[in-house]
């Protein structure tokens, strides 16, 4: 029911520990935005700044066009679900959900035109709590206390407590991370349904890329306090702007190789792991359109974009299986290339005979090849996607001036690589 706009938001702890750098984002009305990133990337801090639980060091946050920097959480018209539920243990489920309603005072204008603030009537509170409980399927537990509930039920109560308030913005801080895997999947699906019923603006924080992909209208991928990419799930999966996003989104994670991209008469080939693989399809066309020259690249290939092939294939890479993980419908093979690189291959078992599947064991030698049309190419120096970012010319001055953030980050990355 409201837009949220963050402009140059910065969070500095103490004197110079910067948790969030220059965060700019516009969240549309009724949009479901997911902040995702590894721990310590500043995603929770940003959420807490929107909630008003952390002070904003620099920049402004607007909710529904109103700057809320100096407003208390209760005056921002937000609701929040906490990672550890944060239910009031001494109150029943009903009272937990009614807590905010009992404190709420809504303006009422009497005959003399005077505005008075009155508390909600018990009937109104009862109505709103039971309605929310109905939607969440917790009507039977309203008189229980939190400690008598299971994890999933507690999570529902926490969501219900936020729901009854009819807030403009719904904030969720890793709400599913305390649940076991099965329950998490179930609650994730329920959240998608619930979202349609609540129909408000959501900001959701998670470290789990599956949750981000399945829930978000748009995903904000963060690292070390910087936004790496903002985009729809499809965008960030198919066209990651940099190497970090490419590796973070998708499970198992993308395989990364140092490779050479060779252009010949408008057609591209990539030489990697001793093989020479044609880059065809969409990706080949895009490279051509951008006029990318022959060069050294970081090649990214998702495990599902690697196929098994025969030894006669000129683009075959012979590999030895190190570990095989049978997932049921698919198999994850950790294989070792002749150059000693570990490659993860995702094999859909449904396409193979039982005998073929059974022969994919540790120690077996297989031949793999990459699909050219779904490869990703990154610059080894800037780590940006060659198809979305222009490589800065061999001119260090412009590179520095172009953008401060990636440059600063690059130094860190180079050290770790």
């Amino acid at each position, binding site marked *: 029911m409201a837009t949220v706009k963050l402009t140059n938001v910065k969070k500095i702890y103490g004197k110079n520990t910067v948790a969030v750098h220059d965060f700019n984002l516009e969240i549309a009305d009724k949009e479901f935005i997911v902040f995702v990133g590894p721990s310590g990337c500043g995603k929770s801090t940003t959420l807490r700044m929107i*909630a008003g639980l952390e002070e904003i060091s620099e920049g402004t946050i607007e909710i529904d066009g109103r700057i809320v920097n100096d407003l208390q*959480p209760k005056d921002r018209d937000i609701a929040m679900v906490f990672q550890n539920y944060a239910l009031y243990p001494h109150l029943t489920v009903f009272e937990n959900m009614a807590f*905010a309603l009992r404190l709420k005072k809504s303006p009422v204008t009497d005959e003399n035109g005077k505005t008075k603030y009155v508390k909600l009537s018990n009937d109104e509170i009862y109505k709103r709590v039971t309605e929310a409980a109905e939607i969440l399927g917790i009507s039977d537990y309203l008189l229980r206390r939190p*400690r008598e509930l299971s994890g999933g039920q507690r999570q529902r109560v926490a969501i219900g407590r936020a729901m009854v308030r009819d807030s403009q913005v719904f904030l969720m801080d890793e709400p599913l991370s305390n649940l076991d895997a099965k329950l998490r999947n179930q609650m994730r699906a329920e959240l998608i349904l619930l979202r349609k019923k609540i129909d408000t603006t959501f900001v959701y924080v998670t470290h789990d890329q599956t949750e981000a992909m399945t829930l978000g209208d748009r995903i904000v991928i963060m690292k070390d306090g910087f936004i790496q990419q903002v985009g729809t799930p499809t965008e960030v999966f198919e066209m990651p702007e940099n190497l970090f996003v490419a590796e973070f989104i998708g499970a198992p994670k993308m395989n990364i190789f140092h490779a050479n991209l060779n252009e010949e008469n408008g057609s591209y080939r990539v030489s990697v792991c001793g093989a020479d693989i044609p880059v065809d399809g969409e990706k080949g066309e895009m490279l051509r359109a951008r006029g990318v020259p022959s060069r050294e690249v970081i090649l990214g290939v998702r495990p599902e974009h690697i196929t098994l092939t025969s030894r006669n294939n000129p683009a075959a890479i012979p590999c030895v299986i190190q570990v095989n993980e049978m997932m049921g419908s698919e198999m994850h093979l950790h294989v070792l290339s002749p150059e000693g690189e570990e490659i993860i291959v995702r094999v859909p078992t449904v396409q193979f005979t039982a005998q073929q599947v059974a022969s994919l064991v540790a*120690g077996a030698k297989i031949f793999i090849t990459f699909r050219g049309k779904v490869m990703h190419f990154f610059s080894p120096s800037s780590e940006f996607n060659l198809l979305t970012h222009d490589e800065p010319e061999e001119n260090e001055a412009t590179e520095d001036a172009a953008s401060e953030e990636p440059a600063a980050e690059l130094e860190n990355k180079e050290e770790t690589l």
Partner: protein
Amino acid sequence: MSEQENIVEFEEISIEAPERAFDIEAPSAPVSDTPLAEARERTQASVKKTHMSQKTKNAITNTIIHIVLVVMCFVWILPFIGIVLESFRCESTGLAGYIFPQKWGFTNYVRLFKETDFPHWFLNTLIMGVIVAIVQTVFVLMVAYALSRHRFKGRKFLMNLMLVFGMFPGFLTLILLYTWMHDWNMTDLNALWGLILIYTASSGMGYYIAKGFFDTISHSLDEAARVDGATRLQIFYKIIMPLSKPIIIYTILMGFMGPWGDFVMATFMAHNAHAGYNVAAGLQWLLTDSMKNEYYTTFCAGGVVVALPITILFLLLQKYYVAGVTGGAVKG
């Protein structure tokens, strides 16, 4: 939007099937079969063996622990039994070389209330106990909450300072306090009020245990309440207080018990008027050289009577004292 428009048709499955023909070379060294059954038997046998010896070991340890505990209990409880038994001795009033009375009776209790100032002492102490318990609890909880939840300049310093101050014995300031109290007419027969002032004034320094307890209550409860619209004060009495029953009870008990046991301060503040004593000072006075032949058994009776209010209070409050109620608040 009609349903027709929503239908997405795939002309042809565009997902490329992997090349069917692929080669797999079998591993060079065959994977050896673990002799599972054999290994399982071995494990079971060893489990059985250690299980038996573990049982015997536990029995021996338990026996030793219980013997030590029984001895400790006996040593600890002996003085109490002695005092209770001697308070019923009627054949003599002074110190005796034995504990079991030859003639039983309530004479000592009657004398305690009729011949000594004990009713005054008892009432003095009871009033002090109640007032100190209330005031101290309020102070301690507020100080502890502030130090646990708020971050302000000098917080660490203040905490350390109070810790250091708390290490000095209270009677270091005895002379100074007496002079002040004397000037304000709060000594001797009015010592009660002087003592209350002294006890409560510094009570906030005993924040430590309560703060430790508050620290265990998840901050996300505070945050949830803030988002829900509660003010700091509402968070304190609607969320934190109901969750802190054990520590509130503990603070009340400590506050109540303090005046019953204080001897140094009470003796000094009322040294000109014995009726201004608290029970500790008064009963000790019964044991001075000139009194003890006459009043030793009365002193024992006093000791038993003093134990009653604290015991009753403790029994009444202990159900809150033991169990916390924080279960289920946050994922543990």
